[in-house]
């Protein structure tokens, strides 16, 4: 059983990223959407929280916020909305950390 943890808020605004990461178990995936994508920026304070996690980021939200994919932490997958749907299908359930 694997879970998709969805985080939609900036880690600097809300504790939802910390809450998500604190409750992930092996095999789970973290998906960053909306303002949550800021967590994936290389060299920023929150980037360390992603270490060792399987992370995807919604490309449309990166582009909207002017974050180039070259600015991202290594190892993060960029997905589109179709990829988001695929992640929901590939995991058993989703937990939206609002």
């Amino acid at each position, binding site marked *: 059983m694997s879970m998709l943890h969805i985080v*939609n808020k900036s880690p600097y605004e809300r504790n939802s990223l910390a809450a998500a990461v604190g409750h992930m178990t092996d095999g789970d995936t973290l998906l960053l959407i909306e303002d949550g994508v800021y967590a994936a920026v290389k060299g920023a304070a929150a980037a360390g929280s992603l270490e060792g996690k399987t992370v995807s980021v919604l490309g449309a939200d990166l582009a909207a916020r002017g974050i180039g994919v070259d600015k991202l932490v290594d190892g993060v997958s960029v997905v589109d*909305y179709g990829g*988001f*749907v695929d992640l*929901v*299908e590939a995991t058993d*359930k*989703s937990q939206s950390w*609002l």
Partner: protein
Amino acid sequence: MKLTIQVNEGPYQHQSSDTAYHFTKAALEKGHEIFRVFFYHDGVNNGTRLTTPPQDDRNVVKRWSELAAEHDLDLVICVAAAQRRGIVDDGEAERNGKDATNIAPGFRISGLGQLIEGGIQSDRLVVFGD
């Protein structure tokens, strides 16, 4: 995959309704079934037909109505949340003595049981909120 989508926030204030819409559309394009889209909390405000958004930006309400029409979607607005926030259809207007209705095409007002049923009948529930 059969999906129920829960939308917790209203149009424009939060990105949730937009993300839920794009997700739902992508799921349909991939051939998945949308069992229901359930609007709760301020999400009920996605169901008012009285918005006049600026011409150069997306029309969140209309977009949901059009998607519903195109794909025969079940867009359900929670009755208790709607009563609190003033989203009214003919039935609610009559029951509660309101002199107007404002529900947008493609939406219907119903109970929380519809969300629960969505959870029971679907393979996945995805929640979009603040």
